[in-house]
């Protein structure tokens, strides 16, 4: 018995074991399927990034009452490709004062984690069954790999992506990139704490850190967004947007203050790689959000023939909704101020997600013990509200005292 199935046997809930494709003996056909999945994942990511950049520009243009890209291809759909090819032919400049080795390493650190996250996302598979599809006579999951601690892997990679941004700015040996990168690292690690705590609530309902198992516990519309009471989902969305450095949290590359932020000194293809990584992260973050909270590819399978297409379709629709949302946010909201950003992360999102985590845990334990759930929830919510009121009262009082002190010392009338 392998380690995974032993672990699965320990739990009281049915936890599915690893990808059936990789169980037992490995022959050439299985290696072929793995290679096929890897190639498909790469192609899918690159094509969807290309379309995403076009979609964002087109949609923002529409919301601004502009035309947007319209020349390259029908509806300008090949604009991204044209831009990419152009950047291949641009001269690559490395500043004199830069740390050359780190300067060249940084795009790798940014882009490779962006690729890797997509590997753990289940993009299809019939989850009313065991979530597998049959390809060439072999049962397999529609994800490149299903490590037993998949979500932890995602969190680890988003931490590594911080290095990409931080080292890019630092190694440029220039002021604006350095400022952009220290901002970026402080922002990304602050929101990563909130992100991790929001995800912890999902583990309470799924009982597993594997992305496949998390989707498998959300079948038949029993999505985590409701099972965890919406709040962790909202925290995840806000923290995820901040983690992506997307508007309204794009202080990392606030053009009016920092020129281009951490990639000011980058040109040519290296700049394109940062851009690619940024949009790839938007897509993978949407895919992770769908996996954790919206049931991944689960949805009704309406036809028997070509039944495996439906889950992929549902997954795409859900991811697309997120992508639309990200673009909409960009077109709508003005940028946060840095102190507001930090306040939101540390003083709102982290206490809120900690409290909510305990509330959901208490609710589930009460449910398992056979206690009435409603009083537990009411008491928990009352406690959280009381805490929030006390806290905001204390903050307001401290603020009033501080302002009074200021008035006294500066001699301004209150």
């Amino acid at each position, binding site marked *: 018995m*392998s*380690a*995974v199935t032993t672990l699965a046997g320990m*739990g*009281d809930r049915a936890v599915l074991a*690893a990808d059936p494709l*990789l169980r037992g003996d490995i022959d050439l056909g299985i290696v072929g399927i793995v290679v096929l999945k*890897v190639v498909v994942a*790469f192609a899918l990511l690159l094509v969807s990034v290309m379309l995403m950049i076009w979609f964002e520009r087109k949609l923002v243009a529409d919301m601004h009452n502009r035309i947007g890209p319209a020349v390259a291809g029908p509806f300008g759909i090949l604009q991204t490709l044209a831009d990419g090819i152009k*950047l*291949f*032919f641009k*001269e690559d400049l490395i*500043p*004199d004062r830069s740390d050359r080795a780190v300067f060249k390493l940084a*795009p790798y650190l940014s*882009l*490779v984690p962006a*690729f*890797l996250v997509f590997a753990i996302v289940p993009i299809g598979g019939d989850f009313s069954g065991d979530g597998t599809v049959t390809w060439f006579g072999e049962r397999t999951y529609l994800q*490149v*790999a*299903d*490590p*037993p601690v998949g979500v932890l*892997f995602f*969190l680890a990679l988003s931490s590594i992506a911080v290095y990409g941004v931080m080292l890019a700015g630092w190694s*440029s040996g220039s*002021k*604006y990139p*350095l400022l952009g990168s*220290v901002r970026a*690292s*402080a922002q990304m*690690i602050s929101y990563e*704490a909130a992100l*991790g*705590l929001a995800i912890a609530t999902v*583990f*309470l309902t799924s*009982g*597993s850190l594997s992305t496949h198992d998390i989707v498998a516990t959300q079948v038949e519309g029993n999505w985590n967004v409701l099972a965890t009471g919406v709040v962790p989902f909202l925290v995840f969305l806000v923290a995820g947007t901040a983690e992506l450095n997307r508007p309204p949290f794009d202080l990392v590359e606030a053009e009016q203050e920092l*020129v281009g932020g951490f990639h000011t*000194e980058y040109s*040519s*293809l*290296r700049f394109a*790689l940062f851009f690619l990584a940024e949009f790839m992260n938007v897509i993978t973050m949407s895919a992770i959000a769908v996996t954790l909270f919206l049931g991944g590819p689960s949805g009704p399978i309406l036809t028997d023939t070509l039944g495996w297409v439906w889950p992929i379709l549902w997954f795409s629709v859900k991811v697309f909704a997120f992508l639309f949302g990200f673009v909409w946010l960009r077109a709508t909201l003005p940028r946060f101020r840095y*102190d507001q950003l*930090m*306040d939101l992360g540390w*003083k709102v999102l*982290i*206490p809120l997600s900690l409290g909510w*985590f*305990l509330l959901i*845990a208490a609710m589930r*334990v009460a449910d398992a*013990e056979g206690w009435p759930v409603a009083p537990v929830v009411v008491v928990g919510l009352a406690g959280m509200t009381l805490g929030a009121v006390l*806290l905001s009262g204390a903050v307001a009082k401290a603020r009033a005292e501080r302002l009074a002190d200021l008035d006294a010392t500066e001699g301004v009338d209150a």
Partner: protein
Amino acid sequence: MSDFLRSWLVLVVFGGLAVLLVSAFLGLGSLLRPSRDTPQKSINYESGVDPQGDMWAQSNIRYYVFALMFVLFDVEAVFIFPWATRLEVYDVFGLVEMAIFIFILALGLFYAWRKRLLRWV
């Protein structure tokens, strides 16, 4: 190799291919692009004027405080995640223990708050 490690092996191969792909992009670019370097091109960008002062500036201590707090919460996650997956096994005992743990942690956060470390001036 055990079944347990096979999915990680696939991920390692996937990551290796990603590195190769990025290298291939950069290699192709270096074949295609011109290289007519002049000293002016290698000067740092500072909105068009000549760069002033030392580029390797020191950054503010505030950033490190946040980094330290992040480590605190990340280590906390290491304890919370395994417990969260086995919630029903540890039952009421586990819940009370976790409540105490999170309470102490929240105290730390509020202490930093009270000491005005979270204020960004």
